Protein backbone atom coordinates (compact mmCIF):
# COMPACT_ATOMS: atom_id res chain seq x y z
CA UNK A 1 0.00 0.00 0.00
CA UNK A 2 1.36 3.42 -0.90
CA UNK A 3 2.29 5.89 1.81
CA UNK A 4 -0.50 8.19 0.66
CA UNK A 5 -3.12 5.45 0.84
CA UNK A 6 -2.11 4.71 4.44
CA UNK A 7 -2.40 8.37 5.38
CA UNK A 8 -5.80 8.56 3.68
CA UNK A 9 -7.04 5.50 5.55
CA UNK A 10 -5.89 7.02 8.84
CA UNK A 11 -7.74 10.23 8.06
CA UNK A 12 -10.86 8.27 7.17
CA UNK A 13 -10.54 6.35 10.41
CA UNK A 14 -10.35 9.55 12.41
CA UNK A 15 -12.79 11.81 10.53
CA UNK A 16 -14.92 9.65 8.23
CA UNK A 17 -17.36 8.38 10.89
CA UNK A 18 -17.45 5.13 8.92
CA UNK A 19 -19.47 2.19 10.09
CA UNK A 20 -16.71 -0.11 8.80
CA UNK A 21 -13.02 -0.34 9.65
CA UNK A 22 -11.21 2.02 7.28
CA UNK A 23 -8.22 -0.32 6.99
CA UNK A 24 -10.49 -3.14 5.78
CA UNK A 25 -12.09 -1.07 3.00
CA UNK A 26 -11.39 -1.80 -0.66
CA UNK A 27 -9.78 0.98 -2.71
CA UNK A 28 -12.98 1.46 -4.67
CA UNK A 29 -15.54 0.88 -1.93
CA UNK A 30 -18.14 3.65 -1.73
CA UNK A 31 -17.35 5.67 1.38
CA UNK A 32 -20.83 7.21 1.52
CA UNK A 33 -22.30 3.72 1.60
CA UNK A 34 -19.80 2.94 4.34
CA UNK A 35 -21.46 5.60 6.49
CA UNK A 36 -19.61 8.81 5.63
CA UNK A 37 -22.05 11.71 5.90
CA UNK A 38 -21.71 14.99 3.98
CA UNK A 39 -20.47 16.69 7.16
CA UNK A 40 -17.95 13.92 7.78
CA UNK A 41 -16.69 14.31 4.20
CA UNK A 42 -16.03 18.00 4.94
CA UNK A 43 -13.90 17.01 7.93
CA UNK A 44 -12.08 14.46 5.78
CA UNK A 45 -11.42 17.13 3.14
CA UNK A 46 -10.04 19.58 5.72
CA UNK A 47 -7.88 16.86 7.31
CA UNK A 48 -6.51 15.91 3.87
CA UNK A 49 -5.61 19.55 3.22
CA UNK A 50 -3.68 19.63 6.50
CA UNK A 51 -1.98 16.28 6.07
CA UNK A 52 -0.87 16.78 2.46
CA UNK A 53 -0.46 20.57 2.62
CA UNK A 54 -2.77 21.06 -0.36
CA UNK A 55 -5.82 23.15 -1.05
CA UNK A 56 -8.81 21.66 -2.83
CA UNK A 57 -10.01 24.09 -5.51
CA UNK A 58 -13.76 24.73 -5.73
CA UNK A 59 -14.27 22.43 -8.72
CA UNK A 60 -12.96 19.50 -6.65
CA UNK A 61 -15.35 20.11 -3.74
CA UNK A 62 -17.86 17.54 -4.87
CA UNK A 63 -19.00 14.09 -3.79
CA UNK A 64 -17.22 12.09 -6.50
CA UNK A 65 -13.77 13.37 -5.41
CA UNK A 66 -14.26 11.87 -1.94
CA UNK A 67 -16.33 8.81 -2.80
CA UNK A 68 -13.57 6.18 -2.44
CA UNK A 69 -9.98 5.76 -1.32
CA UNK A 70 -9.01 5.47 -4.99
CA UNK A 71 -10.79 8.73 -5.86
CA UNK A 72 -9.16 10.57 -2.95
CA UNK A 73 -5.74 9.14 -3.86
CA UNK A 74 -6.01 10.39 -7.42
CA UNK A 75 -7.16 13.81 -6.21
CA UNK A 76 -4.17 14.04 -3.86
CA UNK A 77 -1.86 12.88 -6.69
CA UNK A 78 -3.26 15.63 -8.90
CA UNK A 79 -2.80 18.29 -6.23
CA UNK A 80 0.74 17.22 -5.32
CA UNK A 81 1.92 16.68 -8.89
CA UNK A 82 5.37 18.08 -9.62
CA UNK A 83 6.45 18.33 -6.00
Amino acid at each position, binding site marked *: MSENATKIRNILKEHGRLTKDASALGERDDLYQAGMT*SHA*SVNVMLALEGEFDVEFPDHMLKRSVFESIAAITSAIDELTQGR
Partner: protein
Amino acid sequence: MPATEYDALKFHDGMVKAGLIVPVGVPGIFGRNHVFEDVLARFDAAVTRLATDDRADFFVFPPTIERRILEKVGYMDSFPQLAGTVHSFFGKELDARKLSERIHAGGAWGDAMAITDVSLNPAACYPLYPTLPGTVPSGGRVVTMLNWVFRHEPSPEPTRMQAFRVREYVACGPPEMVIRWRDTWLERGKHLLESLGLPAKADVASDPFFGKGGKMLAASQRELKLKFEVLVPVISRENPTACCSFNYHEAKFTDAFGIALPDGETAHTACLGFGLERCVMALFQEHGFDPGTWPGAVREKLWP
Protein backbone atom coordinates in the same frame (compact mmCIF):
# COMPACT_ATOMS: atom_id res chain seq x y z
CA MET B 1 -45.92 45.96 -16.28
CA PRO B 2 -42.95 45.76 -13.86
CA ALA B 3 -43.14 48.28 -11.01
CA THR B 4 -39.51 49.33 -11.40
CA GLU B 5 -36.39 48.29 -13.24
CA TYR B 6 -34.99 44.93 -12.13
CA ASP B 7 -32.68 46.50 -9.58
CA ALA B 8 -32.45 45.87 -5.84
CA LEU B 9 -32.19 49.47 -4.66
CA LYS B 10 -34.70 50.88 -7.15
CA PHE B 11 -37.21 48.23 -6.16
CA HIS B 12 -36.57 48.90 -2.46
CA ASP B 13 -36.95 52.64 -2.88
CA GLY B 14 -40.05 52.12 -5.03
CA MET B 15 -41.73 50.11 -2.28
CA VAL B 16 -40.75 52.74 0.30
CA LYS B 17 -42.11 55.57 -1.88
CA ALA B 18 -45.37 53.64 -2.41
CA GLY B 19 -45.61 53.28 1.39
CA LEU B 20 -45.58 49.48 1.23
CA ILE B 21 -42.57 49.10 3.49
CA VAL B 22 -41.17 51.37 6.18
CA PRO B 23 -37.40 51.32 6.81
CA VAL B 24 -36.40 51.18 10.47
CA GLY B 25 -32.67 51.83 10.12
CA VAL B 26 -31.37 48.25 10.03
CA PRO B 27 -30.88 46.47 6.70
CA GLY B 28 -33.21 43.54 6.21
CA ILE B 29 -35.72 44.73 8.84
CA PHE B 30 -38.67 46.94 7.90
CA GLY B 31 -42.33 47.55 8.63
CA ARG B 32 -45.08 46.49 6.22
CA ASN B 33 -48.19 48.61 5.62
CA HIS B 34 -51.81 47.44 5.36
CA VAL B 35 -51.66 47.03 1.57
CA PHE B 36 -48.60 44.81 1.81
CA GLU B 37 -50.17 42.81 4.63
CA ASP B 38 -53.47 42.44 2.78
CA VAL B 39 -51.72 40.95 -0.25
CA LEU B 40 -49.68 38.72 2.05
CA ALA B 41 -52.75 37.41 3.86
CA ARG B 42 -54.56 36.80 0.56
CA PHE B 43 -51.60 35.00 -0.96
CA ASP B 44 -51.41 32.88 2.18
CA ALA B 45 -55.13 32.11 1.87
CA ALA B 46 -54.60 31.05 -1.76
CA VAL B 47 -51.96 28.59 -0.55
CA THR B 48 -54.40 27.23 2.04
CA ARG B 49 -57.06 26.71 -0.65
CA LEU B 50 -54.52 24.86 -2.78
CA ALA B 51 -53.67 22.53 0.09
CA THR B 52 -57.16 21.43 1.09
CA ASP B 53 -56.54 17.77 0.25
CA ASP B 54 -53.42 17.67 2.45
CA ARG B 55 -55.73 17.88 5.49
CA ALA B 56 -52.80 19.43 7.30
CA ASP B 57 -52.87 20.33 10.99
CA PHE B 58 -52.21 24.04 11.37
CA PHE B 59 -49.92 25.61 13.98
CA VAL B 60 -48.31 28.93 14.64
CA PHE B 61 -45.08 28.90 16.63
CA PRO B 62 -43.42 31.98 18.09
CA PRO B 63 -40.22 33.28 16.49
CA THR B 64 -38.17 31.78 19.32
CA ILE B 65 -37.30 28.11 19.67
CA GLU B 66 -35.41 26.04 22.17
CA ARG B 67 -31.69 26.58 21.49
CA ARG B 68 -31.16 22.84 21.78
CA ILE B 69 -33.02 22.34 18.48
CA LEU B 70 -30.27 24.26 16.66
CA GLU B 71 -27.67 22.09 18.34
CA LYS B 72 -29.53 18.86 17.67
CA VAL B 73 -30.18 19.41 13.96
CA GLY B 74 -26.61 20.56 13.29
CA TYR B 75 -27.58 24.14 12.40
CA MET B 76 -24.46 25.48 14.06
CA ASP B 77 -22.32 23.05 12.02
CA SER B 78 -23.76 24.32 8.76
CA PHE B 79 -24.96 27.90 9.21
CA PRO B 80 -23.30 29.52 12.27
CA GLN B 81 -23.15 32.80 10.34
CA LEU B 82 -26.95 32.94 10.03
CA ALA B 83 -27.83 32.01 13.60
CA GLY B 84 -29.58 34.35 15.97
CA THR B 85 -28.94 33.07 19.45
CA VAL B 86 -30.70 35.02 22.20
CA HIS B 87 -28.54 36.46 24.95
CA SER B 88 -29.51 38.07 28.21
CA PHE B 89 -28.01 39.45 31.39
CA PHE B 90 -27.40 37.04 34.25
CA GLY B 91 -25.21 39.23 36.47
CA LYS B 92 -25.67 40.89 39.85
CA GLU B 93 -26.39 44.50 40.81
CA LEU B 94 -22.82 45.73 40.41
CA ASP B 95 -22.45 44.01 37.04
CA ALA B 96 -25.66 45.68 35.89
CA ARG B 97 -24.28 49.10 36.82
CA LYS B 98 -21.08 48.39 34.91
CA LEU B 99 -23.11 47.21 31.92
CA SER B 100 -25.14 50.39 31.97
CA GLU B 101 -22.00 52.55 32.18
CA ARG B 102 -20.37 50.73 29.29
CA ILE B 103 -23.44 51.13 27.10
CA HIS B 104 -23.80 54.83 27.84
CA ALA B 105 -20.09 55.33 27.19
CA GLY B 106 -20.68 53.88 23.74
CA GLY B 107 -18.49 50.84 24.30
CA ALA B 108 -19.01 47.21 23.33
CA TRP B 109 -21.07 45.23 25.82
CA GLY B 110 -21.74 41.86 24.21
CA ASP B 111 -19.35 40.07 26.57
CA ALA B 112 -21.51 41.10 29.56
CA MET B 113 -24.35 38.99 28.19
CA ALA B 114 -24.70 35.24 28.18
CA ILE B 115 -26.54 32.81 25.97
CA THR B 116 -30.10 31.82 26.94
CA ASP B 117 -32.00 28.61 26.33
CA VAL B 118 -33.84 30.09 23.34
CA SER B 119 -32.79 31.14 19.86
CA LEU B 120 -34.52 32.92 17.03
CA ASN B 121 -36.03 30.36 14.70
CA PRO B 122 -34.07 30.13 11.43
CA ALA B 123 -36.27 27.61 9.58
CA ALA B 124 -40.04 27.45 9.65
CA CYS B 125 -40.17 23.68 10.08
CA TYR B 126 -37.80 23.43 13.07
CA PRO B 127 -40.29 24.03 15.92
CA LEU B 128 -42.38 21.11 14.73
CA TYR B 129 -39.93 18.23 15.11
CA PRO B 130 -39.71 18.14 18.91
CA THR B 131 -43.52 17.84 18.95
CA LEU B 132 -43.55 14.70 16.77
CA PRO B 133 -41.63 12.04 18.75
CA GLY B 134 -43.01 8.54 18.64
CA THR B 135 -44.74 7.21 15.60
CA VAL B 136 -46.41 8.85 12.64
CA PRO B 137 -49.34 7.09 10.94
CA SER B 138 -48.28 4.61 8.24
CA GLY B 139 -49.89 6.89 5.63
CA GLY B 140 -47.86 9.83 6.89
CA ARG B 141 -48.87 13.15 8.38
CA VAL B 142 -48.85 16.68 7.00
CA VAL B 143 -48.55 19.79 9.16
CA THR B 144 -48.66 23.41 8.09
CA MET B 145 -47.37 26.46 9.92
CA LEU B 146 -47.09 30.19 9.51
CA ASN B 147 -43.89 31.16 11.28
CA TRP B 148 -41.52 34.10 11.47
CA VAL B 149 -37.93 33.12 10.82
CA PHE B 150 -34.64 34.95 11.39
CA ARG B 151 -31.44 34.83 9.35
CA HIS B 152 -28.46 36.94 10.24
CA GLU B 153 -27.70 38.27 6.77
CA PRO B 154 -28.18 42.04 6.79
CA SER B 155 -28.49 43.35 3.27
CA PRO B 156 -29.94 46.45 1.59
CA GLU B 157 -31.42 44.09 -0.98
CA PRO B 158 -35.15 44.02 -0.09
CA THR B 159 -35.80 40.34 -0.82
CA ARG B 160 -32.98 39.33 1.53
CA MET B 161 -34.57 39.98 4.90
CA GLN B 162 -33.30 39.25 8.39
CA ALA B 163 -36.83 38.44 9.55
CA PHE B 164 -39.67 37.20 7.39
CA ARG B 165 -42.67 34.88 7.35
CA VAL B 166 -42.84 31.46 5.82
CA ARG B 167 -45.97 29.49 5.07
CA GLU B 168 -44.63 26.04 5.62
CA TYR B 169 -45.86 22.52 4.96
CA VAL B 170 -44.09 19.49 6.38
CA ALA B 171 -44.77 15.88 5.43
CA CYS B 172 -43.57 13.08 7.67
CA GLY B 173 -44.06 9.45 6.64
CA PRO B 174 -42.73 6.61 4.48
CA PRO B 175 -39.97 7.82 2.09
CA GLU B 176 -41.99 7.17 -1.08
CA MET B 177 -44.99 9.08 0.31
CA VAL B 178 -42.78 12.02 1.26
CA ILE B 179 -41.08 12.19 -2.15
CA ARG B 180 -44.39 11.92 -3.99
CA TRP B 181 -45.86 14.65 -1.81
CA ARG B 182 -42.83 16.90 -2.44
CA ASP B 183 -43.08 16.37 -6.22
CA THR B 184 -46.81 17.15 -6.20
CA TRP B 185 -46.12 20.38 -4.35
CA LEU B 186 -43.28 21.36 -6.66
CA GLU B 187 -45.85 21.40 -9.48
CA ARG B 188 -48.50 23.05 -7.33
CA GLY B 189 -46.20 25.78 -6.06
CA LYS B 190 -45.00 26.64 -9.55
CA HIS B 191 -48.55 26.54 -10.88
CA LEU B 192 -49.85 28.83 -8.13
CA LEU B 193 -47.23 31.47 -8.90
CA GLU B 194 -47.85 31.15 -12.65
CA SER B 195 -51.58 31.49 -12.11
CA LEU B 196 -50.82 34.83 -10.46
CA GLY B 197 -49.09 36.00 -13.61
CA LEU B 198 -45.57 35.40 -12.30
CA PRO B 199 -42.93 33.90 -14.65
CA ALA B 200 -41.94 31.11 -12.25
CA LYS B 201 -39.40 28.41 -12.91
CA ALA B 202 -38.26 25.50 -10.77
CA ASP B 203 -34.62 24.61 -10.29
CA VAL B 204 -32.31 22.49 -8.15
CA ALA B 205 -30.84 24.61 -5.37
CA SER B 206 -28.53 24.56 -2.37
CA ASP B 207 -28.39 26.25 1.01
CA PRO B 208 -25.83 28.93 1.94
CA PHE B 209 -23.64 26.63 4.04
CA PHE B 210 -20.74 28.28 5.89
CA GLY B 211 -17.22 28.42 4.52
CA LYS B 212 -15.19 26.18 2.28
CA GLY B 213 -16.68 23.01 3.73
CA GLY B 214 -20.01 24.60 2.95
CA LYS B 215 -19.21 24.65 -0.75
CA MET B 216 -18.83 20.91 -0.53
CA LEU B 217 -22.09 20.51 1.36
CA ALA B 218 -23.87 22.69 -1.20
CA ALA B 219 -22.44 20.66 -4.10
CA SER B 220 -23.53 17.46 -2.40
CA GLN B 221 -27.03 18.84 -1.78
CA ARG B 222 -27.33 19.72 -5.46
CA GLU B 223 -25.97 16.39 -6.65
CA LEU B 224 -28.44 14.51 -4.47
CA LYS B 225 -31.25 16.88 -5.58
CA LEU B 226 -32.33 17.43 -1.98
CA LYS B 227 -33.39 21.05 -2.49
CA PHE B 228 -35.50 22.70 -5.16
CA GLU B 229 -36.72 26.26 -5.47
CA VAL B 230 -39.36 28.01 -7.49
CA LEU B 231 -37.85 31.27 -8.64
CA VAL B 232 -39.39 34.50 -9.90
CA PRO B 233 -37.55 37.60 -11.19
CA VAL B 234 -37.94 40.39 -8.62
CA ILE B 235 -34.73 42.40 -8.47
CA SER B 236 -32.93 40.72 -11.36
CA ARG B 237 -33.96 38.89 -14.50
CA GLU B 238 -30.74 36.88 -14.62
CA ASN B 239 -30.82 35.84 -10.96
CA PRO B 240 -34.47 35.31 -10.08
CA THR B 241 -35.52 35.20 -6.42
CA ALA B 242 -36.45 31.97 -4.66
CA CYS B 243 -40.08 32.41 -3.61
CA CYS B 244 -40.78 28.83 -2.66
CA SER B 245 -38.30 26.29 -1.39
CA PHE B 246 -38.56 22.50 -1.14
CA ASN B 247 -36.29 20.40 1.02
CA TYR B 248 -36.10 16.64 1.30
CA HIS B 249 -34.44 15.83 4.63
CA GLU B 250 -34.39 12.02 4.34
CA ALA B 251 -34.03 10.78 7.95
CA LYS B 252 -32.14 13.81 9.28
CA PHE B 253 -34.89 15.07 11.59
CA THR B 254 -36.66 11.79 12.27
CA ASP B 255 -33.36 10.29 13.48
CA ALA B 256 -32.57 13.34 15.58
CA PHE B 257 -36.00 13.41 17.25
CA GLY B 258 -36.87 9.71 17.37
CA ILE B 259 -39.77 9.67 14.89
CA ALA B 260 -40.63 6.31 13.29
CA LEU B 261 -43.36 4.54 11.34
CA PRO B 262 -45.69 2.16 13.25
CA ASP B 263 -43.71 -0.87 12.00
CA GLY B 264 -40.52 0.63 13.40
CA GLU B 265 -39.19 1.59 9.95
CA THR B 266 -37.53 4.96 9.52
CA ALA B 267 -39.81 7.83 8.61
CA HIS B 268 -38.59 10.59 6.33
CA THR B 269 -39.57 14.26 6.17
CA ALA B 270 -39.75 16.92 3.51
CA CYS B 271 -40.88 20.50 3.75
CA LEU B 272 -41.85 23.30 1.47
CA GLY B 273 -42.11 26.94 2.36
CA PHE B 274 -43.46 29.98 0.59
CA GLY B 275 -41.40 33.01 1.55
CA LEU B 276 -44.47 35.17 1.95
CA GLU B 277 -42.82 38.59 1.73
CA ARG B 278 -40.91 37.46 -1.37
CA CYS B 279 -44.10 36.22 -3.03
CA VAL B 280 -45.76 39.56 -2.25
CA MET B 281 -42.76 41.49 -3.59
CA ALA B 282 -42.78 39.35 -6.75
CA LEU B 283 -46.43 40.33 -7.26
CA PHE B 284 -45.69 44.03 -6.72
CA GLN B 285 -42.75 43.96 -9.12
CA GLU B 286 -44.65 42.08 -11.80
CA HIS B 287 -47.97 43.91 -11.62
CA GLY B 288 -47.17 47.29 -10.07
CA PHE B 289 -47.25 48.81 -6.58
CA ASP B 290 -51.03 49.39 -6.58
CA PRO B 291 -52.98 46.11 -6.32
CA GLY B 292 -56.08 47.99 -7.51
CA THR B 293 -54.54 48.09 -10.98
CA TRP B 294 -53.51 44.44 -11.14
CA PRO B 295 -54.86 42.24 -13.96
CA GLY B 296 -58.39 40.94 -13.36
CA ALA B 297 -57.31 37.28 -13.40
CA VAL B 298 -54.76 37.90 -10.66
CA ARG B 299 -57.21 39.88 -8.54
CA GLU B 300 -59.86 37.17 -8.90
CA LYS B 301 -57.40 34.61 -7.65
CA LEU B 302 -56.43 36.68 -4.59
CA TRP B 303 -59.75 38.41 -3.89
CA PRO B 304 -62.11 35.52 -4.80
